[in-house]
């Protein structure tokens, strides 16, 4: 059955999905999957360094990965981070409309995010060069450069399987089950 985003049913079903995938999926997790997102959430929630540098931060941040059907990603992914005063309330996959409405939206091709998470690409430099786009108030986010850097560092700590590294069979399998999840959850 399909769930409507924002309802209690959606939240419960998404929670169950995450638990199931964390229990059943093999590591490394594929970037942008529910189990990868949940791992990221946990890392942020448990990170004292992040809590300190983001203690006055208020607002939502979205990592927006652009679709790349050739690499198995048929539609965009929006990873929504609800961040408040050093706490990470949650990180989850959300529908496009919700993702676009976040206070800050960081948009980039899959390859760019892969480079960021491998620490091969500096996020600030990437934004200046147009490799990653930032939508949101610059004066606000500039004050939290340490928090932004920490979020990037934490993403790099996740043992990640990148789309570019998948062979055809693995990619086809991923596309199939991930698209099924999209249909069910609307993200």
């Amino acid at each position, binding site marked *: 059955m399909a769930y409507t985003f924002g309802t209690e049913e959606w939240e419960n079903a998404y929670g169950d999905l995450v638990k199931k995938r964390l229990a059943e999926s093999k590591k490394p997790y594929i970037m942008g999957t529910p189990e990868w997102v949940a791992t990221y959430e946990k890392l942020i929630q448990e990170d004292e360094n992040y809590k300190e540098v983001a203690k006055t931060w208020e607002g939502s941040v979205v990592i927006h990965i652009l679709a790349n059907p050739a690499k198995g990603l048929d539609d965009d992914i929006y990873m929504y981070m609800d961040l408040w005063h050093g706490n990470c309330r949650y990180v989850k996959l959300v529908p496009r409309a919700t993702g676009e409405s976040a206070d800050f939206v960081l948009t980039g091709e899959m390859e760019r995010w892969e480079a960021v998470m491998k620490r091969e690409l500096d996020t600030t430099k990437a934004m200046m060069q147009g490799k990653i786009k*930032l939508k949101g108030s*610059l004066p606000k986010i500039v*004050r939290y450069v340490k928090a932004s850097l920490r979020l990037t560092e934490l993403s790099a700590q996740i043992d990640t399987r990148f789309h570019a590294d998948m062979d055809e069979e693995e990619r086809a399998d991923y596309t199939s089950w991930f698209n099924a999840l999209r249909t069910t959850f609307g993200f």
Partner: protein
Amino acid sequence: MSYDRDLSFIFNSPTKIIFGENSVKDIGLEIDSLGCTKALLVTDKGVTEAGLAERVKQALGRRYAGTYDKCIQDSGFHLVNEGAAFAIEQGADVLVSVGGGSVIDTAKGMAIVMKEGGQLQDYSGIQVLSRPQTPHLVVPTTAGTGSEATWVAVIKDCDQNVKELFCDYFIIPNIAVLDPTMTADLPPHLTASTGMDALTHAVEAIHALQREPIADAMALHAIRMIVQYLPRCVEQGNDLVSRGQQQLAATMAGIAFGNAQIGMVHAMAHSIGALFKVPHGLGNSILLPYVMLFNLEECADRYALIAQAMGLDIRGLTEIEAGKAAAEAIWELTKNIGLPQKLREAGVPAEGLTEAADLSLSDGAILYNPRMVTEAEEVLQVYREAW
């Protein structure tokens, strides 16, 4: 001078540059080359009163669609939105900005709103746009801003009393017409302060974290030209050779910092501009040597290059000593061209420094300063020294 193996950068400089005395006469043909037919002139009252807007209007001929002349120093969101609405009403398909940095930046903001709709505030961020914006031809009437060739527009958020940066490759102007006759009547004090803006762009491009060799080349030669020609422009405004060289230096410095970025000098100058209306070039001019000394330990080798470009004999000096010599040479230069060296002489109240320091931490430019700055106290220390 050397770079590490991890050097990587994008150099982007798409602006067509047209230089020469009376080159403004060719504007009509340049509009045609853009495939446009109705040009809205964007300017301010001062430029209009000086007769410079009329020269451009004449050159536009049948392509002239109207004039928006409400730009002011540090234009705000409301003026950009109002100007864009006026341009749409006039059926304009190209903007021709005639003026200094505020006028050019206002037109950059208008170009976005005309193409994308809504309000300028909807496009806050970095590289938010995904397609070319309304074509834009620039005729600078000062020689300092460099905005005719950059990807940045600085627009004031009057509600928050903060200058906001809009950074996007798609707002780099299509054409810059550098006509020395358009700057010939600029008064000495404005010539001096806007000229120092150009020097600050060049110096900051050299010390910024995103520095790279192509921008270095532009910036270092801009410094050589500014040191030679800016005093002449101040002393004898009708020296069109010097005016032209200073214009070129300002554009080259603009191209340099548009690629290598800027740093703490600009962050601090934006803040005192927003809070106390200190003209941007003047704020930069006062703060530049103080910030260089603040950064010295981090990038003395870069400042030694600047010292050389300024014509100083640095043989036998350490890089630190050469960097200090460069800062002192900048003080000497500003004295010679009649600019103040202290913020108190520019109308900044001592009790306002704390607020300015805090505000500077919100400025995107500070991200690229060679010495990482995350605490307001560090900025305040520099403000106090410059006060």
